[in-house]
C-alpha cells in the first residue's frame, strides 16, 4: 500500500438509471466514513463536460491521489476520466472503476440486494485503488526502415508501396533475380498483362526508387534486437552485411507438389502439371505434336484451392484458342468466388470448353498407347459413366510450404500453422501480423492465395508496417510489467511462456527484462513466474488480493 492515499470517489447516476435500483445516497454516506476517502460526490452525469471539469478541480484542490468511479462500464467512459485525471496532474492509471450500472443496477431486481452488491463493488474498487501504482508513458523510437524477405509479387508490391510511403526498404531475394513465380506463368488472371510484362513493370518501379535496396542471392542469417529496432545479419554472395530495421515482412512464397499417391500415377510426357503446361504455352518450340484433346483435372490434389480452378480456366481457354481441338475440364466444384471468374467460366463454355463434374468417386486415369483414358461418373449426366481419352492431361498440384520455412521461422522466432505455413496472429483480424510485433507475413507463404490476393496481401503488409512505424516513434506504456530483480531466479520460465517473445535476460541485473514495445500486455509471464517476480500493474497480486479479501469479508 502506498503511504497516505487520499481517495476521491465519484458516483454517477447515469440519468436516473442507477438510483432507481441502488440507494446511491446511502452508499455515499457510508463511504464518507472510510478514513482515506478524501472526497465523495454523487452526480447526475459524471461524463458531462461540467462534471468532468468539476472532477478535475476536486482532484487538484483536495490533493486526491486515487480516483474511484461507481457508474457505467469502463468501455464507455474510462478514456474521458483518464484524460481528466491527466489534466489535473494525476497519473491516469491511478483509476479504478466499479461498473454498478451494467453489472448490478441493470441486472438485479430488488433495491436492498442491488444496493448491497453495488456497495461491495465500490469498496472492492477502493481497496484495489490503494495499491495502484502509476504507469508512465514514453516515446520510444522506431526505425522506419523495413526488411522484406522474398522478391515475388507480394514482396515487390510491399516494397513499392512502402517506398512510396517514404520508408527505406531492403528487398532480399534468394535467387539471382526478382520475380519468383512470375517467371513460370504464362498468363495472369485477371490481368491482360503477361507475367513477364508485369514483372518488368515492377522491376522498373523498384529500380526507379532510390529508397529500395535490392539484395539478390542473399539470405537472412540472424535477427537480433527488438521490434522497432531489429539488427539483421544478411549473407550475400558469401559476404556478410548488417542492417538495422524497424519491421520485417516475410514474403517467401510457396512450393507446389504433385501428389503421386493420390493420383496413383507418375508425371510423364503426357501427364503434366499446370506449371509445366504454362511453360510449354510460353515457348512455342517445345511442342512436338499439337495436342488435339487436352484434359484438365482438378480437385484431386487439393479440393479446396481456388488457384487450380483459375489456372484451368485460363489455360483451358488459351489452349482452345491456340490449338482448336477439344478441351475438357474435369472437376468436383469450380471455385468461382473471386471477381470475374464466373464470367471467365461462361467465356470458356461459350468457346467450347467442356466441363465434367465428378462427385466423391475418383475418376480413373489410365495411360494407354500414348493416350490417357479417363473414366468418371458425371453428375450432370445422371451419373452416367463417361469415358474419354486425351492426348494430354494437365493435373493440379498441391500448394505446400517451402522447405526452409522451418529455418526462417526459428531465425525470426515466429510460428507456423498446422500445415506448415506462416501463422497469422489472427486469420481474420490481423491476417498479415505474426505473433511478434514488427514481423509480418504476406502472400502465399501464409495461405493458399491467388495472384490478386497475394498482391493485395503485400499491400496490406505495407499498410501494417506503415501503421507501426510511420512517425518513427511510438507512444507506449513503460514498465507495465515489472520484474523484481531480487526475486528473479532466472529460471527463464517467463521467456519460454511469453507468446510474443517480449522478454530477454538483463545480464547486468541478472534478471528477466520485459521489452515494453514488444509486450502486448497479456500477463502470462506474471501468472507463470514461480517466484512471483513479475507483477502486472493494474493486476498485481496485491491489487487482486485486496479485492478478494474484501469480497470474502463482505459476503
Amino acid at each position, binding site marked *: 500500500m502506498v503511504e497516505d492515499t487520499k481517495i476521491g470517489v465519484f458516483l454517477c447516476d447515469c440519468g436516473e438509471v442507477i438510483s432507481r435500483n441502488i440507494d446511491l445516497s446511502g452508499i455515499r454516506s457510508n463511504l464518507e466514513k472510510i478514513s482515506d476517502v478524501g472526497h465523495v460526490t454523487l452526480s447526475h*452525469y459524471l461524463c458531462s463536460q461540467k462534471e468532468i471539469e468539476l472532477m478535475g478541480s476536486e482532484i487538484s484542490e483536495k490533493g486526491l491521489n486515487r480516483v474511484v468511479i461507481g457508474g457505467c462500464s469502463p468501455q464507455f467512459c474510462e478514456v474521458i476520466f483518464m484524460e481528466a485525471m491527466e489534466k489535473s496532474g494525476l497519473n491516469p492509471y491511478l483509476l479504478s472503476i466499479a461498473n454498478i450500472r451494467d453489472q448490478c443496477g441493470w441486472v438485479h431486481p430488488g433495491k436492498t440486494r442491488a444496493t448491497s452488491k453495488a456497495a461491495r463493488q465500490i469498496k472492492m474498487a477502493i481497496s484495489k485503488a490503494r495499491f495502484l501504482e502509476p504507469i508512465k508513458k514514453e516515446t520510444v523510437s522506431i526505425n522506419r526502415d523495413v526488411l522484406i524477405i522474398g522478391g515475388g509479387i507480394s514482396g515487390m508490391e510491399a516494397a513499392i508501396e512502402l517506398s512510396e510511403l517514404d520508408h527505406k526498404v531492403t528487398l532480399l531475394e534468394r535467387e539471382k533475380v526478382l520475380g519468383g513465380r512470375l517467371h513460370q506463368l504464362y498468363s495472369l488472371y485477371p490481368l491482360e498483362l503477361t507475367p513477364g510484362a508485369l514483372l518488368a513493370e515492377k522491376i522498373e518501379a523498384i529500380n526507379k526508387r532510390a529508397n529500395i535496396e535490392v539484395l539478390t542471392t542473399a539470405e537472412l542469417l540472424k535477427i537480433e534486437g527488438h521490434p522497432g529496432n531489429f539488427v539483421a545479419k544478411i549473407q550475400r554472395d558469401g559476404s556478410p552485411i548488417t542492417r538495422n530495421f524497424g519491421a520485417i515482412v516475410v514474403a517467401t512464397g510457396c512450393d507446389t507438389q504433385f501428389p503421386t499417391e493420390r493420383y496413383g500415377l507418375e508425371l510423364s510426357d503426357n501427364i503434366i502439371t499446370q506449371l509445366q503446361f504454362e511453360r510449354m504455352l510460353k515457348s512455342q518450340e517445345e511442342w512436338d505434336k499439337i495436342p488435339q484433346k487436352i484434359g484438365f483435372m482438378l480437385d484431386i490434389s487439393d479440393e479446396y484451392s481456388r488457384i487450380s480452378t483459375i489456372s484451368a480456366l485460363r489455360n483451358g481457354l488459351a489452349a482452345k484458342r491456340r490449338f482448336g481441338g477439344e478441351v475438357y475440364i474435369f472437376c468436383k466444384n469450380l471455385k468461382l468466388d473471386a471477381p470475374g471468374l*464466373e464470367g471467365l467460366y461462361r467465356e470458356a463454355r461459350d468457346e467450347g470448353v467442356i466441363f465434367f463434374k465428378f462427385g466423391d468417386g475418383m475418376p480413373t486415369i489410365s495411360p494407354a498407347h500414348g493416350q490417357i483414358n479417363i473414366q468418371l461418373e458425371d453428375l450432370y449426366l445422371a451419373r452416367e459413366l463417361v469415358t474419354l481419352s486425351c492426348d494430354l492431361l494437365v493435373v493440379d498440384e498441391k500448394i505446400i510450404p517451402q522447405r526452409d520455412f522451418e529455418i526462417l521461422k526459428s531465425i525470426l522466432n515466429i510460428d507456423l500453422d498446422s500445415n506448415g505455413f506462416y501463422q497469422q496472429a489472427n486469420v*481474420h483480424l490481423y491476417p498479415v501480423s505474426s505473433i511478434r510485433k514488427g514481423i509480418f507475413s504476406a502472400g502465399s507463404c501464409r495461405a493458399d492465395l491467388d495472384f490478386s490476393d497475394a498482391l493485395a496481401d503485400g499491400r496490406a503488409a505495407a499498410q501494417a508496417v506503415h501503421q507501426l512505424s510511420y512517425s518513427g516513434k511510438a507512444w507506449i506504456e513503460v514498465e507495465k510489467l515489472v520484474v523484481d530483480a531480487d526475486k528473479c531466479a532466472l529460471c527463464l520460465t517467463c521467456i519460454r511462456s511469453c507468446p510474443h517473445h517480449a522478454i530477454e535476460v538483463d545480464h547486468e541485473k541478472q534478471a528477466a527484462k520485459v521489452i515494453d514495445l514488444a509486450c502486448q500486455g497479456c500477463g502470462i509471464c506474471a501468472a507463470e513466474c514461480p517466484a512471483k517476480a513479475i507483477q502486472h500493474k493494474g493486476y498485481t497480486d496485491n491489487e487482486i488480493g485486496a479485492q478478494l479479501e474484501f469480497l470474502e469479508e463482505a459476503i
Partner: protein
Amino acid sequence: MEKKRVLVIGGGIAGVTSALELAKNGREIFLVEREPSIGGHAASFCCKATDVCNKCSVCLVPERMKEVGIHPQISLLTTSEVREINGEAGDFRVKIVRKTRFVDPDRCTACGICSEVCPVESPKAISLPYPGVVPPAFVVDKDRCLRLQGQECTICQDKCPTQAIDFDQGPQEIDLDVEATIVANGFDVFDAREKAPLGYGKYPNVLTGLDMEERLLKDGAILLPSNGRPPQDVAFIQCVGSRDEHIGNGYCSKICCKYAMRFSRLLQYQNPEVKVTVFYMDLQNAGKGFGDFYEQCKENIRFVQGIPVEISQVSPDQLAVRYEDLSQGKTVEESHDLVVLSVGITPRKDARNLAGILGVNLGDFGFFDGLTQIENTSTNREGIFLAGCCQGPRDIPESIAHGTLAALRAVRTLT
C-alpha cells in the same frame, strides 16, 4: 502540420475500417452515414459459433464500431448524405445534408427513460436498436412515433433528462473541405421476391439468409414462422440472385456458400436431430481452413448438386421443393419445413445516383468500377476511392482488407 481531412461515405465495416486506419495515420475523418447508426449490414449479423468458432468474422465488427465511436479524430455524421462534391483531389468541397436524427447522440446517455414513457407498445417507437450500437443513442421509429405520424405527443421529449430529443429541428446543411473521399456505401441484399416461384414473401416458412442472421441475433434460435416450433427439416437453396445471367447478376456473391454451411452447423448444434439439405451449383469451399470445415459439414449435412426452381406450400407447416435430381436425371419433389434462400450481394439501388454525384464510373453489374482490376480501390476520379462491397462482393475480412487498402491509397494522395 495541419491535419489532412478525409470524407468517408458509408459506415459499414469497410468505411469504418478506412476511417480507423486513416485516423491512426493522423488524419481527420468525417464519416457520413445515411442511417441513424453505423455498422451497416454486418452489425445485424449473428455469431455462428458452435462449440468452436466457425470464423464467420461477425465479431470483428462491434469492436471496430466502438473504436470509431470514441475516436477523437473521427466525426460521425449520421442520418446524413452527400449531395454535392466539387473541386479536385487535395481540395474537394462537399455539401452534406444532415436530416434530423431526433435524438442528439452527443447528449443521449442511453438511459432508456424515453422508451419507458413512450405510449406506443411492442415495440416502442423509440428504442436502442441493439446493445452496443454506435453512436450509443436511442433511435425513433418514424413509422410508429405518434408525433411523427402527426399526433400530439412530446412525452419522451419532455422526460428526457438531458434534453437530447428534439422533434422540431429541421435538416442541416454542412459544408466540408476535404482532401480525399472514400466511398463505402456497401450493397443491397438480393430481393428474393424477384424470384417469385421460390415463394418468398408468400410462404411464411421461406426465409432468406439475412432473415436468419437477424432472427438469430435477436432470438438466439430459429423457430418456424408458421407455428413457432423448432424446424426439423431445413433446406438451403444457394445462388439465389447470384450466378444468374437472366437477371443480369452473372457473378458469384462469395459469401452465401459459407454462411449457409455455418448456419447448417449452427442449426444442428442447437438441435442435433434437425436434418439439413444444401442445394448448390458449385460449393465455394476455398480459403484458409475452409476445406476442413467443409469436411466436417459433410458428415451430417446432405449436399445436393442442383438448384430448385419452385417451392410450393403443401400445408401450413410443410413446403414442397421441386428440383432436378441430376443423379436420377428427372425432376423430383421433396418436403421441408423450412427453406432458406441463400441470397447474395447486389449493388445499391441508388448506386447510380451516388456515382453521378461523385462523378465516378459504375462497372460490371452496377458495382462501382475500380480503375483497374488490381487497382480496384482507385476510381476514374483522382482523390476518390472505393472500399468494400460497393465495388463487388466481399466477406467481412475482405471488406476490412479493402477498406485498409483504400485508406493506404488515400494516404498516398495526401502526402
